[in-house]
């Protein structure tokens, strides 16, 4: 279970309150602190825990927002899209096939420059109907202009939600952002979290200002007209321009977050664990970090120099930085909690992206072995991780290893 607490600077402590809450609750509290104007909801596990917590906050009189229960995910995302166009700070979310049901609404938001913040409680896509975590739901929007980030603790969920509003609502960005939280491991487990004060948040997070894009009778504009081939390439180029500066904006916001709240995240894009002297590393996203760190400590005790790189931001994908980080290792083992059937080397999504980034950004060519596992909520066990490390070390020695292997698989 994800219980990593990040040390808080002594001077900031009196401003914060400690609470034992789930990742979902942490995001609900972030919404309250961000003074979100419009929330839309439609139940699906594991996202629904967030909508429950927000409705509780509203019922308790702690939070003031329009809380709309839609008749389905498509409407849910359409409503916040329109509310955001009218200048409201919005929050919504979903999981698995619910997220896919909203897909048409999800595809239109980046071009319309809607800074919608969504929480994706990662869940396996049907069929079979399974509640457990798998990353393919959120990853379905990876090419569409959405920003995608994965968190691995309740604290990080809260902090990232605040950061998300700052990044997405930056006038240079204005694109939707999804915070991915692994179903069950993060959404449903409680951990100690430092909750910042309203004053701190107000200082960090300015009001959402839609400027000349505001849909309002005093600013008459027409949004999303039909356009022919004379216009579409230019519109896509505008969204491309956002991706060109996205990493810089994120870096700025993390620096300001650290200044305001005192919590340090270091490199915003990925977190390194015991990599300084490592020969090989594992790389993955989300709450798999917990068994991975435990396994690494165990293997380190046995003298095996292994580290872990946890990817926080998948979109934007900080390609050059990731390649520079990974080029110094003798082999890399990627753990994919997803699949990308028919992809190059039949690997998962993350391994394919990592290899692509290294092809242009790395001066070395270490083997990148992909491990697909933990699907449908299956536990990635410490022995599973030990096995991946063993295979990665074998690849580092120059022994041929299949580029894609399944872990935790019966058979």
């Amino acid at each position, binding site marked *: 279970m994800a219980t990593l607490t990040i040390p808080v600077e002594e001077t900031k402590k009196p401003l914060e309150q400690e609470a034992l809450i789930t990742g979902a609750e942490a995001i609900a509290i972030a919404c309250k602190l961000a003074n979100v104007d419009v929330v839309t909801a439609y139940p699906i596990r594991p996202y629904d825990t967030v909508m429950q917590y927000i409705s509780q906050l509203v019922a308790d009189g702690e939070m003031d927002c329009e809380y709309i229960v839609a008749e389905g995910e498509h409407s849910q995302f359409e409503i916040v899209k329109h509310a955001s166009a009218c200048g409201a700070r919005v929050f919504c979310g979903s999981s698995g096939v619910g997220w896919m049901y909203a897909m048409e609404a999800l595809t239109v938001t980046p*071009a*319309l*420059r*809607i800074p919608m913040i969504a929480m994706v409680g990662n869940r396996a896509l049907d069929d079979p109907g399974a509640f457990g975590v798998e990353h393919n739901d959120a990853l379905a929007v990876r090419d569409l202009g959405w920003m995608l980030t994965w968190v691995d603790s309740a604290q990080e969920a809260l902090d990232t939600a605040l950061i998300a509003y700052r990044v997405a609502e930056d006038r240079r960005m*204005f694109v939707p952002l999804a915070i991915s939280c692994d179903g069950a491991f993060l959404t449903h487990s409680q951990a100690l979290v430092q909750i910042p004060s309203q004053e701190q948040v107000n200082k960090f997070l300015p009001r959402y200002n839609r400027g*000349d*894009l505001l849909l309002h009778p005093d600013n*008459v*504009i*027409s*949004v*999303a*007209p039909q*356009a*022919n*081939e*004379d*216009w579409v*390439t*230019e*519109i896509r*180029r*505008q969204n491309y321009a956002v991706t060109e500066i996205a990493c810089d904006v994120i870096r700025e916001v993390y620096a300001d977050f650290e200044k305001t709240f005192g919590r340090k995240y270091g490199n915003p894009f990925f977190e390194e664990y015991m990599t300084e002297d490592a020969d090989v590393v594992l790389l993955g996203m989300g709450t798999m970090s917990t068994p991975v760190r435990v396994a690494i400590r165990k293997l380190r005790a046995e003298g095996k120099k292994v580290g872990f790189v946890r990817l926080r931001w998948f979109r934007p994908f900080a390609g050059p930085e990731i390649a520079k980080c990974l080029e110094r290792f003798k082999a890399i083992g990627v753990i994919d909690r997803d699949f990308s059937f028919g992809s190059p080397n039949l690997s998962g999504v993350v391994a394919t992206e990592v290899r692509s980034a290294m092809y242009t950004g790395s001066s070395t060519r270490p083997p990148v072995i992909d491990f697909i596992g933990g699907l449908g909520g299956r536990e990635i066990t410490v022995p599973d991780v030990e096995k991946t490390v063993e295979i990665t070390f074998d690849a580092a020695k120059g022994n041929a290893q299949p580029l894609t292997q399944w872990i935790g698989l019966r058979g």
Partner: protein
Amino acid sequence: MGQLFAVEVIYRGVFQKTLAKNITRDIVLAAHNQGKLGISFGRYGDAPERNGIPAKSFAIVANDEQTLEAGMAQYEPKQVDLTVVLDDTLCKGAESWAWYGLQPVHHALKPGHTLIVISRDDAPALLKNIHRREEPYKLGIIKGVTSFSGMWVFKDDHTDVRVLGAIAKVLPEVMTFESVEKFINEKLKSSLKVTSARNAFERFSSIDVKAGMGNPEEPFKFDLPRWEDMRCGVSIKGQPQGGAFADPVTGKVGGFRPARNELFKKYSTRTQRPVVNFSTCTKCTLCWLNCPDAAFDVTIAGTYDTNLTACCGCGICEEICPVKDCITMVNESEFHDNNSQWAAFEKDKDAYLKWLEATIEKAEPIEKRSHGFRYRGQYQEQVPEALEVAKKG
């Protein structure tokens, strides 16, 4: 590279969609009879499923595959060897749904090549509408009633084969009359159609249009912005609300005119226009309320003046108007400008009412445009009439 030919057919959405598609397809099939290869296609950015909107269909014909491929390696032909206009009111210009501005009908025609129009008018009347151009070209008229049917319906009034016959006269390099005849006999299986095509072939003639002849109006156009200069968020500035305006004759300020988009005017969709009798208008507001395009300006006197750059000629005002003969739809080919009727009325009421009476009277026995078929059996009525005109040539 071998020889490449492009023919474009300008037509009206819905009413002539099937006709235009058939003509460009038939060109390719007839040309194939003399060993040529070709393709036919509609311009994808157009909206052939919208009533009356100007649209284009193309036939590209070549002697060999590589030449044909060179012709296909572009979205649409930039230059054509022949342009066919299936409705003479399109001579005022074609504003595609895909927002290319107002294009003259000879926009893509190569210098010296032929523009064919189906019309009952003569060349001087058409040239009042067809825009001026620098390069000379030829204008030929196929005498006939505009063939209008529907989205899924093809009115079998021989317009298609008459166009094929005329093209065989102008561009025998694409298809000779023998190729057209063979195509009709084999595919359409009608000796009467062969006769219609032959009549059109034999009677077709064209005049030389010299540089600078035609309608001096500058068609409205716009420059496409660079991506950095475009508003982001797929948004465009809306039109302001509009308001009072200066009366064209008295100069007094009053009434209400909605602000309108200067870059998309819609009037080239029109095949008939409302003519308003301001002396019998009771100011009941129904035309103004029911107009789907907010085409009416409220005059200072409280009457309703059709803004003829905004009106697309749907005829709802005529249907809704409770006063007999107050609003009458008249064939658009009777008019050569978009000037305000209210201004003319105010300037000289008697002259306007005389003009109004003559216009309506003149318009009545002439082709009353009907957009598609409005009642069961109309098709059966229309085809013999059209065939009669076709036989007379």
